[in-house]
């Protein structure tokens, strides 16, 4: 048995067991978080463009995201994954920087509307889809992301294939074939950060994973182990990798999905400590008069500069990769939500002016979870705030109550009367509740 076959066999085995309660709970949190971000972004212009493309190139099968257009399951999976990651407000597995929920949910939800799905299988599909892609990502971390691959797309296809495979009831051999196929279509280059192609990585990974499982069900396969072969997926996409993470003995003994976190701010996670420091400064000293500021210095981890060092942002999407934008809006408004990362705020002259006076000061003393914001005022005084462990980190995870607040805020923008009900229902995923039940609440009649 090859490592890939053993990996697939263990996943199928685990899908037939009852999930540990804490894993089931984390899976529901993960599902709810990306359902919220997807519904929140579901009417953006970029999603409109994706729907128009699906209408031209694809079939007509189901509707998703509370929209009226009818697309095929593949474009729906794409749209769901795209929307879930669109605002960069979804989840993050901090060690790998994977946003694992979007692609997995996209594939599962779309497929779940096309067939009868036993609720426990829906939950298992989501749990193991996330678990499998995180383990593949961990096996290549940190080299894979450092080279320049967008790990959410490259590994997302694995999560989507596993999730869809479990929903389809694939056996171990068929799931191994689904993974073989999925490994031939990873996507995601970090060059595209700051453009709609970034969320498309999650969406297309969802569609590709779903397609892989569907084709495997029909018997398509390849004789080579495309995962661990010397010219295979791991070797091509990373400089150093370890198969320890896909060791079947380790799987189920510990669950890496428990290390998943949820974002309090809609932007790249490495900037969250600095943004939190800025909002806390604003709350502590009152909203800042921008004219009084000489300079803002941000002590941060070097990764902030690498991933979010953009100094100019002309759109909301670009602002999501501009740490100084998050700091500036945090100082100016005391908030850093979707409104503060809008296209309008990205070019607001007051925000731009304060951004221009904000400087990132990377050093190795700040961990990825820490930052210090120091505001130097023209009158010679200084205000400073240090965040040692950012909200949303492993040490300070969002509580269920905070996650619920985020979900309701996102969903209420489009479904004000159903957000609470949707939360309650989706929190029962797997316990008599499946994707179609959830969708019933947002479906346009």
């Amino acid at each position: 048995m090859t490592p890939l076959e053993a990996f697939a066999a263990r996943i199928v085995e685990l899908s037939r067991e009852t999930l540990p309660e804490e894993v089931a709970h984390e899976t529901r949190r993960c599902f709810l978080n990306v359902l919220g971000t997807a519904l929140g972004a579901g009417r953006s212009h970029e999603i409109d463009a994706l729907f128009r493309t699906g209408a031209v190139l694809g079939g007509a099968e189901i509707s998703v995201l509370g929209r009226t257009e009818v697309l095929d399951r593949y474009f729906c999976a794409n749209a769901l994954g795209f929307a879930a990651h669109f605002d960069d407000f979804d989840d993050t597995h901090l060690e790998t920087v994977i946003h694992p929920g979007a692609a997995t949910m996209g594939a599962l939800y779309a497929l779940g509307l096309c067939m009868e799905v036993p609720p426990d299988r829906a939950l298992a599909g989501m749990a193991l889809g996330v678990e499998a892609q995180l383990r593949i990502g961990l096996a290549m971390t940190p080299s894979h992301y450092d080279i320049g691959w967008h790990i959410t797309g490259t590994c997302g296809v694995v999560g989507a294939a596993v999730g869809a495979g479990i929903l389809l009831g694939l056996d171990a051999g068929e799931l191994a074939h689904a993974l073989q196929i999925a490994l031939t279509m990873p996507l995601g280059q970090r060059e595209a950060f700051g453009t709609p192609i970034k969320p498309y990585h999650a969406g297309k990974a969802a569609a590709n994973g779903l397609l892989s499982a569907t084709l495997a069900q029909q018997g398509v396969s390849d004789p080579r182990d495309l995962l661990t072969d010397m010219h295979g997926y791991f070797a091509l996409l990373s400089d150093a990798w370890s198969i320890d993470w896909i060791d079947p003995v380790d799987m189920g003994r510990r669950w890496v999905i428990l290390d998943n976190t949820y974002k309090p701010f809609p932007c790249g996670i490495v900037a969250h400590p600095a943004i939190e420091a800025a909002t806390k400064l604003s709350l502590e000293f009152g909203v800042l008069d921008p004219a009084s500021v000489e300079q803002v210095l941000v002590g941060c981890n070097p990764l902030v500069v690498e991933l979010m060092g953009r100094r100019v942002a002309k759109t909301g999407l670009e602002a999501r990769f501009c740490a100084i934008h998050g700091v500036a809006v945090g100082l100016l408004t005391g908030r850093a939500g979707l409104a503060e990362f809008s296209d309008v705020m990205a070019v607001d002259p007051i925000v731009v002016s304060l951004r221009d006076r904000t400087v990132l000061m990377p050093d190795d003393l700040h961990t990825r979870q820490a930052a210090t914001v120091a505001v130097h005022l023209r009158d010679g005084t200084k205000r400073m705030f240090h965040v040692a462990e950012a909200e949303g980190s492993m040490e300070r995870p969002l509580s269920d109550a905070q996650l619920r607040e985020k979900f309701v805020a996102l969903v209420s923008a489009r479904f004000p009367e159903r957000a609470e009900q949707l939360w309650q229902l989706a929190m029962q995923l797997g316990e008599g509740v499946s994707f179609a039940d959830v969708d019933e609440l947002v479906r346009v009649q």
Partner: protein
Amino acid sequence: MNDLSASIASVCAGASISSLGDATIEHAVCALDRVLSLAVTRHDDPLVMRIDAALGGQSGARMIEGIGPSRKFVPGVAVMTIAAAAALELSAFAYSERVLSVIVPPAFVAAQLSDCDGEGLVLAVAFGCEVAYRVRLALGESHERRGWDPVGTAGRLGATCAVAIALGLNGMQIHDALGFACTMAAGIRVAGDELRAFGAGKAAADALEAATLAREGLIGPPEPIAGRRGFFALTAPAGDPNRILEGLGERWHDFERLAPLSFGEDLADIVDEPNCQSLVEAFHVRIEREISG
């Protein structure tokens, strides 16, 4: 070079049939003939049946003739079936022929969607072949030595340019389409004929999708080809992306002459045709004939 992708897109958008020599036109016409002919002969291959079983039977706003029992497919799947079927026949050939299975089908389907004329279709195929050839050359040998399949990587970029021309995209749209194509261009070499042929079908369908997304207004990064975290940096750091542009649109590679197969007469006057309807009808006749034995 900071504007390589934009420059390639600009040349693509300004492409004209008058810049093509007779040999290039003949190659493009024979490529159409070859791919469509070979696809028809594989209409009942097990892979085609599997793709049909997995994806056929969908109904959509526009149905296109493809390969497989469902016969009529939504455009994305029609491209996939034609390309995969042709790829099965071309798998033993050199890159310049194998890659035709990725370039011709999406150009053929895009031409139907946009009602482009015969000249546009021939130009699209010629340009797609040229870009695919140049990209592979620029990627260098190490790209394939590591395990990348250039049909899936370089071929996706060539096919996207072909579709973009057939759809009549402008330079900025082609630039954005290349952004989508680059980020999907991670074709991993496989061992089996079946998954390799499916990979060609997938690359062809992705090219159609990339260009359509760009036409619908989704934008990409400034430098997807030569950027620091872009296509070359990730799949061929030792390559030289600037080689793609040198003389593009002016100098054309002298591809090995392809012998015409079954569409000879139907394609004789293709560059003068106001649309591709006669070719579509000829394709339909070939399929009918093949099925009836």
